[in-house]
């Protein structure tokens, strides 16, 4: 499939749905929910063979969105470096294991400094355990999947009074960890009292209870991440929330079917997040949702073992995409021009009324600032 073919296909879908697309509404306050997805190749997403794995992004969200099908990752195609690049607007080259802070200020920091908002306005809820508190000073970092991993390990390894991986026992174990061990897990708290705040605490406990006793019996890390992020939005409504889904990263262990399942789950959860925002009067008109994958993965036949990894530096690995929904998107359209992921930073900042100074990234003129 050529880029021209893809563009034709995307434009056709837009044309079909454009009259029904919702016009952007003026917003009294501006919020951004930024969702980053792990590595997803073009052949498992925005290609004729791949669209079946992302039906909601393609059929439901694309027609309402400002869509950049060609968003290049020109930095280090690893998780921490990519996400910190997107947050700073500068390609980062720091420790991939989350042992270092980004070398430049993040969107969170620009926003805190210029709007004087408190840490309750800046949240990261992530499935990827590498996004430790180092991702940005002064931001609340919830390593949701890691909380569950720790709880599962404690039960499996006999380190807990709870002995079976049953839903209630897991909820109890996660709740206990939340009380005592969140910092060891790598969660970030701007102040020691942050997680002692009853509102914050209730937010997290409520999300855990929804996860364990939810109607669809969710069990994956990304499901938990979604529920915590949704609860943070509901109860705390921060100005900037970054969410990361990573179930597709099971690809590193070589199960293609589970990798495809992870892609499908992120498709479903992105759609659910948008539906949730649209259904919440306090969020609907003020919230822009930005969705992008961090990178692709290595091509079949590469010496790096194909879809298992994302380090070849080839186009299959570097070519990502970005979708903008809500007030900053303006009228739905597909922008065929190549952009860089770091272009999103000044664009999101500008929409939020924040000045990032001179960054390598360019302001995307399509953002409805």
């Amino acid at each position: 499939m050529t880029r021209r073919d893809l563009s034709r296909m995307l434009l056709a879908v837009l044309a079909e749905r454009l009259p029904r697309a919702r016009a952007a509404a003026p917003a009294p306050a501006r919020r951004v929910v930024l969702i980053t997805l792990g590595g997803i190749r073009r052949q498992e997403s925005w290609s004729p063979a791949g669209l079946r794995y992302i039906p909601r992004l393609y059929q439901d969200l694309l027609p309402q969105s400002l869509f950049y099908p060609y968003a290049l990752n020109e930095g280090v195609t690893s998780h921490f470096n990519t996400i910190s690049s997107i947050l700073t607007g500068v390609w980062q080259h720091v420790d991939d294991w989350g042992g270092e802070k980004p070398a430049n200020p993040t969107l969170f920091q620009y926003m805190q400094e210029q709007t004087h908002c408190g840490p309750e306005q800046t949240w990261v809820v992530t499935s990827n355990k590498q996004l430790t508190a180092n991702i940005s000073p002064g931001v609340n970092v919830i390593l949701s999947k890691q909380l569950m991993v720790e709880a599962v390990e404690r039960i499996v390894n006999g380190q807990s009074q709870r002995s079976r991986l049953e839903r209630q026992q897991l909820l109890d174990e996660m709740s206990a960890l939340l009380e005592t061990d969140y910092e060891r897990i790598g969660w970030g708290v701007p102040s020691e009292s942050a997680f002692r705040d009853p509102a914050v605490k209730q937010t997290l406990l409520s999300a855990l209870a929804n996860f364990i006793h939810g109607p669809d019996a969710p069990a994956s890390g990304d499901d938990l991440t979604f529920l915590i992020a949704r609860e943070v939005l509901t109860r705390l409504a921060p100005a900037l929330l970054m969410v990361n889904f990573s179930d597709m990263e099971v690809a590193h262990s070589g199960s293609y079917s589970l990798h495809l399942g992870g892609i499908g789950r992120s498709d479903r959860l992105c759609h659910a997040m948008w539906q949730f925002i649209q259904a919440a009067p306090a969020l609907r008109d003020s919230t822009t949702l930005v969705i992008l994958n961090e990178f692709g993965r290595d091509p079949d036949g590469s010496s790096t073992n194909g879809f298992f990894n994302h380090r070849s530096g080839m186009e299959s690995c570097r070519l990502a995409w970005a979708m903008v929904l809500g007030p900053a998107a303006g009228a739905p359209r597909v922008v065929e021009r190549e952009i860089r992921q770091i272009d999103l930073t000044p664009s999101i900042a500008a929409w939020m009324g924040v000045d990032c100074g001179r960054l390598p990234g360019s302001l995307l003129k399509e953002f409805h600032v």
Partner: protein
Amino acid sequence: MSDQPPVPVDLIRRLPATFGPALRDQFAQWNLLFSAERRQLQAQMDWLAKLPREEFDGLFAPLAAIESRMALGWDSNAAALGVRDTGILARSPLYPQWRAEVERVFSRIDEAAAPSGPFQKLPRLLVCVLPAGVPLEEQTLWPELAAEGAWLPLAGPFGAMLAPFASAIATRRPPPELDADERTWVIECGSRFTALAGVPVLSWADIEALRREFLHRLNAVQRDLRSVDRTGDELRRADIAHITPHSLAANARVREFLRGVLLSGNGSLVFPNSFVEWAAAEALRRAQPQALLACFGMRQKLKPFSSLVLFEDQNRANPVASSDDPSGSLVDALLLSGYVYLAAQRVACYPGHTLTLLGAADSDRVLALGARAAELPGSPASAEALASLALGWLG
């Protein structure tokens, strides 16, 4: 061993710094290298040693210039690289340029030092088998590869023919120039072929004790790079003979190959089909056997919550009953068997010299690719005829 060449210390010193640790490690492990690796390494070193100074410097100058700007901070005499070292390299802003330049240099070296002679022209055989019990009707089998090959009808299910087929291949009279580890390899999820004598058989099922020990140790890794490196070093040095099947433990090269596969990620400790794919790809790259049989298997469904901790035994503490995942296993094995074929295409001795057979245990046809695929008989082949065809090809 007496045939170990002296380490070309001076030559290694003249090479870019990023080459040193890997080369030193290869010479240190000389006794554990397969014959094909020794031939290749020796040919590369010989060619470089004879390269006129001006050409040598010209070949490596761009790479050395990039390295000088990378601030790697490595010990240039290090015997091997740790996770921290490779992390510094991979996150350098100059890494893409470095990688491209390394590929250019190796392309030049491999072209000039390409092995020739009987090993390169040998007819070879690659067989990949999808497991029994997968819903073949749900997927088109190898649609892209099928366009390049031909379907050979069989007189019965491929799975029923495998035992006599594998036995015939394993007991054939191999070319005299091949040593024991260059003849036939079998890599399988189950333990159907572990009784085959005289050939390395790597069975996921039979190495359970070894896998469990490695997983147990890896689960204890702390969240810091020193802990990762330390555990990696310990596992590379650990005595594993007592938890490795005897036939593998007795062959040091194969035993260390197995250790290397299990410790190099790619899911080889987690999922049986990932093990088969990665071990097969590594065997093709390193040992370059004349015949390789890769038998994929059934993966179990991941259990709720346990699936988050892939390195754990999902049966521990989980009340959910275990069950197979036939559909998922088919999707996995289809792609991964294609990867084994592609892995062979990256090793010079296979393309153009290899008959590849891809089939499913429950299917009565196999896809033949490569040499002579178009000349296969149109009538259904019996087990004997299939074995005869493969043996005839191998000579």
